[in-house]
């Protein structure tokens, strides 16, 4: 039996080695990659795609920085892209190998964090707000106090995504500051606000969707995508846009400097910029993407979903998160460390 197992194992190794020349290692946020998209890509190209999850920009950065990760593509948020570039972790893209580059919606081409899109291409964009199970709490949900000063009904039933910039920015705007502020008075209030709120949080995890769907939690500080996915499983879940201010963000795909499957990576990058494929990404994760013309391939329920189409009255409060100077990031990460421990 041992020899049998061994031969089976060796055979598996051998086939693994054969598949090795046509494979792609995608390092992406958890619950973010459409299986349908991957299946279609694998069928069309014969490339075997493996997806590994991460739960925050900092985790991804730390893992890649540690070396020997083996990933080809990564999906950092806009405000982290300059760090990846500066650290030499991602490489410049050869746009001549990306015929679908022309499909990027004009407003997403010349972006602050990557002018001319020399390093990244759009994946999805969205907002960070609050998701509330309205069968438990019927008050105003368009406020970050849902998790920073929670109403009685929600206390102890809240999940907060462990993404530093989103949460700290929500708290800064909640006390009246602006993202990237280095004003110590404001930051002191931010820290106190977060530390006082923490006892009311049940968990800090990225899987808001699963928890909201299973009624393990009744509210979350989270992104619009999981909130919509949870609503489709559990109708009373609604998404609120904090009127004190909420972050807008975009995550983009980048090619790692030490990628081992560069050709496959280019094929994938080009593939996801085709509108019908970009729509698959959105249909799964429930965010908008930056590819022009992809809307017509999206599920009908996406077109007027309150999580995706920002209501007129909430538009003004949205702030696209800039890349903060490292002195500000240093302050935030110290607050964050205190909060997490």
């Amino acid at each position: 039996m041992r020899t049998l197992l061994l031969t089976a194992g060796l055979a598996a190794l051998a086939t693994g080695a054969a598949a090795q020349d046509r494979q792609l290692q995608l390092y992406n946020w958890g619950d973010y990659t459409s299986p349908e998209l991957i299946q279609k890509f694998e069928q069309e190209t014969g490339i075997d795609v493996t997806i590994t999850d991460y739960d925050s920009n900092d985790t991804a950065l730390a893992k890649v920085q540690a070396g020997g990760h083996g990933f080809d593509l990564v999906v950092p948020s806009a405000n982290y892209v300059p760090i990846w570039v500066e650290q030499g972790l991602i490489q410049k893209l050869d746009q001549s190998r990306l015929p679908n580059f022309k499909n990027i919606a004009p407003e997403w081409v010349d972006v602050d964090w990557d002018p001319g899109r020399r390093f990244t291409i759009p994946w999805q964009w969205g907002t960070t707000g609050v998701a509330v199970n309205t069968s438990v709490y019927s008050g105003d949900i368009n406020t970050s106090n849902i998790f920073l000063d929670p109403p009685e009904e929600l206390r102890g039933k809240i999940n907060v995504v462990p993404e530093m910039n989103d949460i700290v920015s929500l708290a800064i705007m909640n006390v009246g500051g602006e993202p990237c502020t280095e004003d110590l008075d404001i930051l002191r209030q931010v820290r106190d606000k977060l530390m006082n709120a923490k006892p009311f949080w049940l968990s800090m995890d990225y899987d808001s969707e699963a928890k909201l769907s299973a009624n393990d939690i009744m509210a979350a500080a989270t992104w619009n995508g999981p909130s919509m996915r949870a609503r489709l499983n559990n109708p009373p879940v609604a998404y609120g846009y904090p009127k004190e201010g909420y972050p807008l963000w975009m995550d983009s795909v980048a090619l790692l400097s030490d990628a081992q499957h560069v050709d496959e990576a280019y094929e994938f990058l080009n593939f996801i910029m085709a509108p019908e494929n970009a729509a698959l990404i959105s249909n799964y994760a429930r965010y908008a993407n930056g590819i022009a013309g992809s809307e017509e391939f999206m599920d009908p329920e996406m077109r007027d979903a309150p999580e995706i189409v920002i209501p007129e009255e909430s538009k003004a409060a949205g702030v696209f998160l800039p890349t903060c100077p490292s002195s500000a990031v240093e302050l935030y990460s110290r607050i964050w460390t205190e909060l997490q421990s």
Partner: protein
Amino acid sequence: MAMSSSAETAAARRRGRSGWLLSTPALVLLLLGAAGPLLVVLAFSLLSKGEYGGVALPVSGQAWFEIFFQRDIFDGTISPAKAHLAIFWRSVWLSLATTLITFVLGLPTAWFIATRPERQRALWLFLITIPFWTNLLIRTFAIMEVIRNEGLLNTTLIAMGAIDQPLQILFTDWATLIGMAYVYLPLMVLPLYAAIDRFDMRLLEAGYDLYASRWRLLRRVILPIVRPGIVAGCILVFIPSLGAYVTPRVLGGGTNMMVGNFIELQFGQARNWPLGASLSMALLIIVMVALLVYVRASAREGRDG
């Protein structure tokens, strides 16, 4: 005669040499894959933190200082690092509580098995061993399904009318505690059983005549005799509880961290490798101290017996 004695010393030398020789492959494997890397962790704990993860020069005691003290972000004052101490404290009390619960459940269980008829014992023992060898994740997952808001426990209690709102157990310290007690119970039962099994039941008869009350019998006769098993069981439960990672991660929800999770955080999101390294070493030291106490205790046991 002279020949044989020199042959004996030669034999002794040969034994020593071949003892080492035969053990070498195992030692090399362990040095590469387990013991050696620990030295690197020690070295990392004495370096400074790199800007985006990793370590950097200069050599510094900062990481060890950070375990215990913190510099306030705003006014620079130094105070005890309450958050870190709270995590250590949670790890210690949860581990102690786990040890206590498994003991309270484990002693009667071991006693029960040891007093079964000879032929049945192996079967009962086997039943304890199965969960022990079952994948830790599967057991953690199983207990999660039981305690979640819409899980077996809450739905049963609600159906019975005992409560009308589900009890929030999942993602609290209680979840971690229940999970660890569940996962480590067999580790307590097995050494207790081994100790009770050696116990001569006729002593009980004599004791029963002397003390009459079963509780006093338990305290005066049984507990002292099975003490080596108790000490071994407690150490076998306490040490893995202290370093637990999977159970608090799955059941604790990311806010009720134990030392193991906090260490991971330093190597991931918090990107403070030196602190992660110094915390790992601190955990190792605590475990070694616990083991030392155990060795002492069992040595004393040996002298007494």
